[in-house]
């Protein structure tokens, strides 16, 4: 049960939990949370693969994960922006309706 296999279980576990969350979560903010959890899972697998190099960890994978983190927050920001706009329009139209 080395550290590598522990974190592999964690990363695939996070990916699976996130995937289930995206499919099953009714509220849109939860779907966005679930996608973030999935991306953290993938990054964990990348960092685990970088770790077990005997000397220093693999910098190429670390650079990939850094790029991935920034891309993930860009996607999240856009998703929240769209969700906010839809919510504003749906609230406005509900308010007009009654």
């Amino acid at each position: 049960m080395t550290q590598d296999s522990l974190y592999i279980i964690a990363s695939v576990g996070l990916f699976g939990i996130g995937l289930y969350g995206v499919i099953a979560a009714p509220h849109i903010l939860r779907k966005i949370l679930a996608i973030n959890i999935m991306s953290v899972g993938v990054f964990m697998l990348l960092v685990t693969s970088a770790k077990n190099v005997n000397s220093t960890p693999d910098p190429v994978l670390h650079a990939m994960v850094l790029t991935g983190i920034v891309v993930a927050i860009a996607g999240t920001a856009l998703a929240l922006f769209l969700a906010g706009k839809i919510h504003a329009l749906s609230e406005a139209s509900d308010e007009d309706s009654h």
Partner: protein
Amino acid sequence: MFQAPDFKNNSYENELPFATRVLCAIVIGALGFGLIAALILTENISSSLPAMVQQKLTQSGVQNPVTAVLLNFRSYDTLLEIGVLLTVAVAMLPNANFNSDINPDMPGGNRSSSHLVSVVNSAAGNPPLEAFLRWLIPMIIVMAGYMLWTGTALPGGAFQSGALLAGAGVLAQLSGRIQFCFTSTTAKLLLTISLITFVMVAIGVATTTGVVLQYPLELAAPLILLVESAATLSIAAILLLSYNTLATQVFESPSEHSTFEHSAFDNQPSDVTETSAPNETLQSQTAEDPKS
């Protein structure tokens, strides 16, 4: 699974039936175990890339291998990634002429000021946070500068210091005294400064070394630092813009849309219109009370 987004927080009408959710969980669990088994059983071959990075580190102009990979060996990835950030920034840019509808009283609601940062003494500020920020924000800025500078040797770099600066901006905005207006020209320049410097460095370098993005050996360190500081500014500005837009967005009501463009889309096939939960469930829910 993906009907119209549902906001009636925790209304469970259009949630998947219990059976399909259990089935999904089982399928995902099985695939997950399969993947874990495959990953653990196959031993991880040590790729030749880290050795290559170590060997070429001296020629890259920086000591920190991650920064070397990010800004020299695979600088094209970072260029495209800042392009991703610019995409989101442009998508979230507040409309120039809708400034008036951004709610002025909300903390950070930008009054129609033309310059990027404007101090305003709105009633909504709270003194303890302001006093704390008066000390904290300069410290964060110094920390971000240090993070940027050590990025070449120790862990740190453009993204971390950009995130720190964005955090300082968010705190300033929450204090209610500082307001950002991202439709000003300085803001637009700040958003694109990183891409401008990156493209100019890429082309300038190509004229000397003949290959795009290949830094001449002796100029590598200063060029990387230049690109990195521009990236820090842009990342901080873009992340702050996204927080500002999300925190202060009040949208033009649908009536303002040009009449026909909107009406044509309204008669959507039924599956798109939301399940209109009765309105009173909204009011009664302060905190979400789960459907028992």
